[in-house]
């Protein structure tokens, strides 16, 4: 589904991704861990198409297409979804109206008819149940005045509405209480299928008790320096990152 090969990306003059490789197949869940500032959000943003980053080398193939050639909206329409680490507030745009526009623009891209008001509402209701988000929240302006946890939940709700092929969750678990964490994880698990894939960026092994990853990667200094299975996450939880840094230093 996704094949990242030797990806280099800069912000300004500063190189942040330094030759990153990653392959994700349909049906898989990949966890990416790594110390602060390693480049996890940068990777997520580059995949989503944020223009602040310059890709200086490497390729990203997404379901046979060169992802880096596509505009952010076309990436989303092709099925890439990134849940933001820090979702911003957009005053004056209601979540409902925003999602209706988004869902219908994606449908249009796929050559489907727009959803009528009733089908859309039904879909909303169904997905609201999935992530247990309140109607009152959705009639407000997008994320405006939402608590940290509510914003994260709203990201997962948007993911459920857009039903992506590849979802990248950038620290969606941070700031969630235990119940919310479980709800969000259940949401992800019920959306999981053999046709889609998830990249879950997290600092905490805790999340991986709920969303069982097929692979765990360590991103450090702009590259994936170690990959393993879910046991790696336990090891990181126990030992921290120093031993990884040492391994890297030794080459």
């Amino acid at each position, binding site marked *: 589904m996704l094949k990242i090969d030797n990806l280099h990306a800069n912000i300004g003059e500063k190189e942040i991704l330094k030759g990153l490789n990653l392959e994700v197949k349909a049906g898989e869940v990949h966890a990416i861990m790594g110390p602060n500032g390693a480049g996890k959000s940068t990777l997520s943003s580059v995949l989503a*198409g944020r223009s602040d980053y310059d890709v200086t080398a490497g390729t990203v193939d997404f379901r046979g297409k060169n992802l880096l050639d596509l505009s*952010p*909206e076309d990436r989303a329409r092709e099925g890439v979804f990134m849940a*933001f680490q820090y979702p*911003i507030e957009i005053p*004056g745009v209601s979540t409902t109206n925003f999602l209706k526009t*988004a869902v219908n623009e994606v449908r249009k891209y796929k050559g489907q008819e727009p959803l009528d008001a009733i089908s859309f509402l039904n879909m909303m209701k169904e997905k609201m149940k999935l992530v247990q988000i309140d109607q009152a929240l959705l009639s407000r302006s997008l994320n405006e005045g939402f608590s940290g946890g509510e914003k994260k939940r709203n990201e997962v709700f948007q993911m459920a509405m857009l039903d992506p092929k590849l979802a990248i969750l950038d620290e969606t678990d941070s700031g969630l209480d235990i119940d919310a964490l479980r709800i969000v994880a259940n949401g992800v698990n019920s959306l999981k299928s053999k046709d889609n894939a998830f990249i879950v960026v997290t600092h905490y092994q805790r999340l991986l008790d709920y969303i069982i990853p097929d692979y765990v990667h360590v991103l450090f200094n702009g590259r994936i320096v170690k990959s393993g299975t879910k046991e790696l996450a336990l090891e990181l939880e126990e030992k921290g990152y120093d031993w990884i840094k040492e391994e890297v230093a030794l080459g």
Partner: protein
Amino acid sequence: MTLDNITQNFKDFGNKNLQIAEQSFHSFSKLGFPTPKNEEWKYTDVSSFVNLDFNWDSASTLTKAQIEAIFIKGLEANNLVFVNGKFKQEFSQILSPSSEVFIQSLDEAVNQNIDLINNYFAKEIDYQNNAFSALNVAFASNGLFIHVPKNTYVQLPIVVYFINDSRTEQVFSQPHNIYVAQEGAEVSISEIFVSEGSQPAFSNHITEISLDRNAKVQYNKVQIETGENYHVGTTQVRQLKDSIFTGTTVTLGGKIVRNNLNILLDDQHCEGNMNGLYLLDNESHVDNHTVADHAKPNSVSNELYKGILSGHSTGVFNGKIFVRQDAQKTQAYQSNKNILLSDTASMNTKPQLEIWADDVKCSHGATSGQLDEQALFYLRARGIGEATAKAMLVMAFAKDVVEKIQLEPLRHHLMDLIETKLQQS
């Protein structure tokens, strides 16, 4: 318009019944039209249009059906219609009973109620210094006189359409309106400026609004002219104790527009609200000058003006707040926010606070910038195309001001117009 032909016109059409007219004409002759050397007109150059050869008495062939097509859909209101500056009884419809509101054309009112008119006419208008005001006052005969008696609530809104029909010639119109809300009266009055035709048209407009104690007036000025329209207007408001005035000025069209909105808070516990929205494209130029003049203690003024500029358009916002020595415990707030959608659009904002009292709360703020890139990315990352995403953000920005208008059909109409305009630019 040369002074010679204005003088000739004054002999023909000048208002002989109002003593002030003569004085005002002399004042105009002395002043002449302002140039950018005049501090008040520094950023707005009127020389391109004041010298055009306008017809002062232009006829129109607009039919009743054509006029009704202009009316805001779904808005049940007292509709008053002016075409090329002249009141058109035959197109107008007053639904409210005369016990609720008295509505008369200004020339009729001058003929029948001169004493009443003299109480209000040009009382606060600065025709000594403002040439456009002087010109208007000298000729004032067209306009509306609206009088709401004591403790009366006018149920239906009043909507005044000022239509310039420049399909066959260059039109000049000079409405002068007087709206009076007596003690405890409550009324909503909207002025909608519309145009037909592509030749130049120029409105030199004055509205005077008087709020007695405890009166509430909602006033909307909506400029949706298309084509080569020029507009210079002054809305002059005087408030007495416990009154609430809310004025919302929405400018979606016009080539060169200058709006003055001056509120005199002439008593205690008044609330004066000024909201504005301007959406400019191409070469259009819109200049909003506002004054909140706090003459007495304990009053509040709130001001929010927002602008969206694209193309080569230019905007001006000048917001004056005066707090007189007497006016302790004044609260005055002002904010002007602009989004520049192109590199070639520009905005000039100047807050001007003059405060002589020491115990006051005043604040002002101004921002001008591009659309929020992060917000744009967020929307696009969900599959929304760039143009649509931009439009959504601009609509959200504009909605803030449009929502201050209490007439729902007018709000919808404006949001639709804004959406259409955004799609075009």
